């Protein structure tokens, strides 16, 4: 079953048919989501009532398009705000973690490394409730002790950001560590010999080398944050990010405006995904 070995034609064509079928299966749901965004009907379902742009640009009820739907636009803004902070925190901690695990030896390093991986194997909804329980307890105690209000510790965007950051940081650490491991330390030593300070050498030599990985990790963090649902669901307050807003509408039944949003999401995430691959490609060619 490799290219160089002859195979019977029946086998070869059955195999190809299977793989083709697989890709049809992968493409089907996304294709129908996109097609229904142009259906001139108030329900995202068949029959096909004709082509329309109303679900993007419409401004007359019930034909309210994405670009005129305030609550959708606001939730996109909320998601971007969350994604920005999650990505920033994740690459910051990811970078320091990478230096910690690649450059240093310390007691129980193996153990700490496994701890670092833990967020990957904890279901998202449990990360959410544990942070909810903890922050609520802290808020109650602080409020009893001081008599002030600590809204940041109640369900809301700060908690959503922390919840997503709690596991996305692990991904960032893995991506950045992989790159740091390939770094040739003699370059840094050369800079030190030429009179650079330690921080100077890291800033001038090591960080530029790490840049593709850091940028790639930032893009991946943005994607993961944008599409996160489970952790966000447990920590969200009154400002709903896009996925939560869409979920609420989906449960109630909505017009194809959701298809239009989804189409935009598909385009943007495909572009971002390709961008992150491009960063990784640059990383390989270096």
């Amino acid at each position, binding site marked *: *079953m*490799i*290219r160089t*070995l002859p195979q019977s034609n029946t086998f070869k064509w059955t*195999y190809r048919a*299977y*793989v083709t079928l*697989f890709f049809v*299966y*992968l493409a*089907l*749901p*996304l*294709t*129908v*989501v996109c097609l229904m965004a142009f259906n001139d009907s108030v329900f995202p*379902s*068949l029959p096909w009532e004709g082509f329309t742009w109303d679900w993007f640009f419409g401004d007359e009820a019930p034909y309210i398009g994405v670009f005129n739907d305030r609550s959708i636009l606001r939730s996109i803004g909320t998601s971007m705000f969350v994604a920005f902070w999650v990505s920033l925190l994740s690459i*910051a*901690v990811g970078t320091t*973690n990478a*230096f*910690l695990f690649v450059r*240093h030896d*310390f007691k129980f390093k*193996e153990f700490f490394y496994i*701890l670092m*991986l*833990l967020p*990957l*194997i*904890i*279901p998202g*909804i*449990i*990360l959410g*409730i*544990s942070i*909810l329980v*903890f*922050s609520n307890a802290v808020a109650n105690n602080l409020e009893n002790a001081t008599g002030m209000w600590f809204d940041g510790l109640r369900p809301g965007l700060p908690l959503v950001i*922390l919840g997503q950051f709690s596991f996305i940081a692990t991904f960032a650490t*893995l991506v950045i560590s992989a790159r740091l491991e390939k770094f040739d330390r003699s370059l840094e030593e050369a800079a030190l010999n030429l009179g650079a300070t*330690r921080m100077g050498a890291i800033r001038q030599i090591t960080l530029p080398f790490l840049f593709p990985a850091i940028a790639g990790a930032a893009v991946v963090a943005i994607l993961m944050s944008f*599409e996160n*649902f489970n952790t966000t*669901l*447990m920590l969200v307050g009154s400002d709903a990010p896009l996925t939560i807003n869409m*979920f609420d509408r*989906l*449960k109630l039944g909505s017009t194809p405006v959701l*298809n239009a949003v*989804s189409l935009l*999401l*598909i385009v943007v*995430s*495909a572009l*971002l*995904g390709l961008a992150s*691959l491009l960063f990784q490609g640059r990383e390989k060619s270096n």
Partner: protein
Amino acid sequence: MNSAQSRLSLLLLFTPFVLWLALLIIIPHIFMLLVSISVKTGVREYVTGLGNYMVFFTEPLYWNTFTRTAFMSISATLLTLLIGFPVAYYIAKLTRGRTKTTLFLMCLIPFWVSELVRTFGWMILLRETGVFSSALQYFGIVSEPIEFLYNDAAIMIGLVYTSMLFMVVPLVTTLDSLDDSLIEAGYDLGGNGITVLREIIIPHAMPGIVSGCIVVFMLSLGNYLTPILLGGKDSLWFTGLIYDQFITRFNWELGSAFGFLLLILSSTIVWAGLKLSGQSLTNTVGR
């Protein structure tokens, strides 16, 4: 670098690591454990005990939902492996160059999109007024609309679809590293397709299989969107119970106990998977 400087930089790097892990992972889980073992006896009065866990074991609905979720997640994992393996093998071994990159990318793209959008797609396909039902009517195979949504098969389709990437990518990576000459040697030594698959390909792909299965199982077990949207109100998924206790009924004590049980189940299966296959967490998930 002298040792004082080294110790300082170690300390500086350790601080964010410890803050992150302690404040967002470890301490919250300890709190969740503490809440799960406090039983409400009156207004703002609690005693420590295993009452919440007893509720779980004595109420058949909770217990059945738990085993059902576990069983369906395991089935979804195996199904994903069965469907994904031939495709991963095809991409890794039977294509090369540009075709390989394109096929691999085609596998990746659907998964950069939010799970919500993917599930929405399946709702449009499966619902009573959806694409499949309309197509069947159009071709005269059935005369009435059929509801394909809101049953276990729909949940299964959604779970398998949504986890496929996490199976295919590690499989392609490990199969890619298998030298073609080993397969050739297998055939030269008189093996047939099945023995080569069993003796050479599968043992080599084991790290990929294990890491794929672990991730898919975990994602299915902890999934909320797919079972709720595709399975409807009676989907009986354990994460749905946790959500109800926390958000709808505001019974955080019972909800925390449920959360802990789910965590124990998922960790046990991950641990057992690693032990059975002789792999470690670092070389499966942590790559």
